């Protein structure tokens, strides 16, 4: 905490003491996030001539989950001739995290569900990180208890009461409970559904998903319309399904395809041994623990603050123009192979020679903007009526998705010390372009007021407890899984890549999920490994 912030916090406390009942002034904080100015300058291409040319066997663009997974897979095979370029100052993409005097905390993705058996690469990664023990191929592998989300996991604030879990189940109108039961039974059927080749229709990674005419039809309407068509009209169920779509896709269920909406409920089959059941892996820094450890292994092969502004394919190699933001100079990379592990929409802007049909396959992708608030609290909020403070705490009918408690996984008896809350707010209530404009033009103070007002519905003491409120903006956080995007021809075109360029990103399967990004990263790495050294000793995808 800087001196100014410290004084401001004390001033706030003193004022609060003088005028009981009056709303204390806004806690201090900062507005951070992707460098939007630079992002927009990239398309302009206004950079000096390169000062240095570097050569590498494989160049990975983007150090999010896809890029880090690709690098991990190369290292696993003993392949060291690669470099990773990351636009931002910190690796991790949507899984980035922060740390303050109280705790580490997520700035984006905050959990990983226990991976499905088909997510073999994720399981191998977790085994490598020491969190999955024993056989990664086991039906229910044993996971390190420290990373399994501790109980109580979730609670929902509705009608003045905190209830356990996120599915509303108290004070429901007649028939809502039965409708919920019918909905979850339907999801259970989808979970088990397979095509005539025996592939699960809603597998994750989605590359393993099978197809039937019925599943293709789900791609033609929105989740909301599907629910209506199926006779689901219970308000609590609609809220919950929309919550799920906003949570996983940053997109309203009136826009998400029914296939993607159902996928949220039907894809997870991962279970853990020793009583872990179906739960999630988490840590104070969310998924930051995974990307931080992967980035740490890269050493000098990872270059952060490196903006790619042009990409050209030559006869024997690829030439990449880079602006090094730290040293403020231009670089050129010449690579034998390239893994594009950054959001796909950037590629056509930088690669002017990109084939038109590949650009056309990328063009329909849209991205949901997100805002993540980090609230530093002197103590957890008063528990309120009902279920005590959980890891994930959600408010019914809120524009936000609630908050997770960074100190939840701590093994401490005294749970009343300072803590950090990460509050999530997808800007799913407007067209993404307009929402992004709002995200960028709205001041920290305005957002902070809105967030504190939302939270104070359940926590009257939130303003008094909050000593800092920092905001992190994700302009293009998640690809939006709208109807019609999962056409096979389109997906196959993306998967085919472009000469020496392999595409690897969650955007490929049109789902911004860890397993999906990891799959495409590992797949690109294995493609290159197979090409370089002939037969691969192991195939993870």
């Amino acid at each position, binding site marked *: 905490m800087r001196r100014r912030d410290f004084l401001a916090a004390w001033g706030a406390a003193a004022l609060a003491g003088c005028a009981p009942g009056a709303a204390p002034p806004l806690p201090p904080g900062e507005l951070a996030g992707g460098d939007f100015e630079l992002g927009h300058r990239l398309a302009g291409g206004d950079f000096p001539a390169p000062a240095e040319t570097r050569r590498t066997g494989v160049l990975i663009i983007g150090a999010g989950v896809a890029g880090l997974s690709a690098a991990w897979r190369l290292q696993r095979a003993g392949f060291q001739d690669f470099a990773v370029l990351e636009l931002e100052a910190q690796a991790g993409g949507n899984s980035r995290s922060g740390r303050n005097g109280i705790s580490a905390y997520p700035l984006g993705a905050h959990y990983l569900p226990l991976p499905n058996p088909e997510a073999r690469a994720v399981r191998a990664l977790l085994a490598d990180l020491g969190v999955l023990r024993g056989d990664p191929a086991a039906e229910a592998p044993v996971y390190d*208890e*420290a990373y*399994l*989300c*501790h*109980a*109580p*996991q979730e609670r929902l604030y509705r009608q003045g009461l905190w209830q356990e879990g996120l599915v509303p189940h108290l004070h429901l109108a007649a028939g809502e409970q039965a409708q919920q039961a019918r909905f979850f039974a339907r999801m259970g059927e989808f979970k088990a559904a397979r095509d005539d080749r025996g592939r699960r229709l809603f597998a994750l990674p989605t590359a393993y998903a099978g197809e039937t005419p019925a599943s293709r039809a789900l791609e033609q309407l929105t989740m909301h319309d599907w629910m209506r068509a199926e006779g689901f009209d219970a308000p609590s169920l609609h809220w919950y399904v929309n919550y799920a779509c906003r949570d996983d896709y940053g997109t309203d269920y009136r826009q998400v395809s029914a296939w993607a909406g159902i996928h949220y409920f039907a894809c997870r089959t991962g279970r853990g041994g*020793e*009583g*872990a*059941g179906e*739960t999630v892996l988490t840590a104070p820094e969310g998924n930051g623990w995974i990307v931080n450890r992967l980035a740490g292994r890269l050493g000098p092969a990872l270059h952060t603050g490196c903006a790619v502004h042009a990409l050209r394919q030559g006869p024997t190699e690829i030439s990449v123009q880079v602006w090094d933001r730290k040293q403020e100079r231009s670089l050129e990379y010449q690579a034998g192979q390239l893994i594009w592990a950054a959001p796909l929409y950037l590629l056509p802007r930088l690669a002017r020679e990109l084939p038109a049909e590949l650009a056309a396959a990328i063009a329909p992708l849209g991205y949901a903007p997100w805002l993540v608030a980090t609230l530093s609290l002197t103590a957890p909020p008063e528990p309120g009526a009902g279920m*005590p403070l959980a890891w994930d705490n959600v408010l019914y009918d809120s524009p936000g998705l609630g908050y997770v408690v960074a100190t939840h996984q*701590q*093994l*401490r*008896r*005294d*749970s*009343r010390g300072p803590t950090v809350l990460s509050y999530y707010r997808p800007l799913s209530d407007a067209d993404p372009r307009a929402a992004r404009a709002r995200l960028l033009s709205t001041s920290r103070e305005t957002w902070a007021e809105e967030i504190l007002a939302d939270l104070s519905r359940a926590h009257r003491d939130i303003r008094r407890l909050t000593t800092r409120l920092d905001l992190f903006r994700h302009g293009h956080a998640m690809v939006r899984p709208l109807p019609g995007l999962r056409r096979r021809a389109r997906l196959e075109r993306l998967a085919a890549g472009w000469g020496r360029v392999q595409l690897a990103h969650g955007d490929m399967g049109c789902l911004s999920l860890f397993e999906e990004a990891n799959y495409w990263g590992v797949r690109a790495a294995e493609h290159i490994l197979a090409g370089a050294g002939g037969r691969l000793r192991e195939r993870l995808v």
Partner: protein
Amino acid sequence: MPAAEGVRPPARLQHALLASVFVIASCGLAYELVAAALASYLLGDSITQFSTIIGAYLFAMGLGSWLSRYVGGNLVRRFIQIELAVGVLGGFAAVGLFLAFAAQTGPFRVLLYLAVLAVGTLVGLEIPLVMRILKREVAFKELVSRVLAVDYLGALAVSLLFPLILAPYLGLMRTGLLFGLLNVGVAVWALLLFRDQLPRSGGLRLAAGASVLLLLGGLGVAGKVSDMAESWLYTDEVIHMESSPYQRIVVTRWRDDIRLFLNQNLQFSSRDEYRYHEALVHPGLGALPGARRILVLGGGDGFAVREILRYPQIQSVTLVDLDPAMTRLFSTAPLLTQLNGNALKDPRVSVINADAAIWLEENGEVFDFVVVDFPDPSNFALGKLYSTGFYRLLERHLAPGGRVVIQSTSPYYARRSFWTIVATLEAAGFQTAPYHALVPSFGEWGYVLAGREPPGLPSAYPEGLRFLTVAGTGDLFHFPADMACLPMAPNRLNEQSLVRLFEQEWHGAAR
């Protein structure tokens, strides 16, 4: 209005007024005793509380007497108004103070003394007014002797009734409300007696009626309020009370029985704590003649340490307790250090105030014997300290051949909880030996001895034990049918099944 001074009560009313003096005096003393007793119960240190409350009350009465010179107008009307005010204010003082204390809102002592001063001032007004009303009828000498005699008689009556009947059977809140009703009763009586001297008394009647209803209503819900606040009340004399950031610490004494309550839960009674602590320490430590380094987690009262120090070979005892207030109290208060044999001041003992799990995570020391004496797993934060994750952490601090013992709630009242703790230790890789002992204050109590190898039993105990014998120890490890082993799932951090079980079982136990 000088004419009003001259209102002369008929002779037959004299006795009525004197009778009301008796009631008024009783009420006056009752409010004083209720306030002083309340302060002693809630704040502890009864000598100070009685002394300062009675002093403040007498001072306020003096103030009231002096202020009575400014009271003019229709004296009977004033008298009735004052009676109503005393009745309502004095009657509800105890309820209000209890609630204020229970809700922990505002500065309780300020509220307490404000209430005492307000009631005392009003009570101080009563007798001078009565004397002024009576003075036209009765000679001054006669008046003073009669009124004051009745006044002191009333005081005597209540001073006897209060400790013998009122406080024990009615409780402080009902006693206060009852005397409030008596005060209002005097007002109603006066309203009836003086009805021809009270023109336009509609307002007074209304106020009197409202006061009666209010106080009756108070008596009606006093049961509920007292249920709520009664948990704050201890049957014995409170000799120490403090609120640390972690818990509310209360020490009570009744004759030679000293009891510790943390957040209203009994932690020990000095009459039988030796059973609990001998059973906690010796079956494990007695079988480890080579044990040198001991760790105690929780147990800030120093009793477990006292038992550990019976072994001459012990070189170091590390006590990790969350609350500095606890360890300070049990290292300094003479009455309590007498009980724990000044164990926390022993040169071999180091006291660390830290969160046990965090301390274990941050330290690499290993120990030959670890005593885990945490509060029962009544919430999710405490439940983490009974989890496979915590026991695995603990295992890393165990020297080769070392043992741990875990206080494990009651296998009788919370049978499934007890066997869940056993299953949890086993899932974390320990070999266990569960046992139990009868501690009259708690009932049947459970412990689990655990180690990497199956724990053996002691062949000798140190001198001076009052409960355990070598011959009888085997019996502790035998569980009768109503406490026998149940197959339970371990308490894992991601489920915390123990917290839910514990809540169900203790909720169901008749206590």
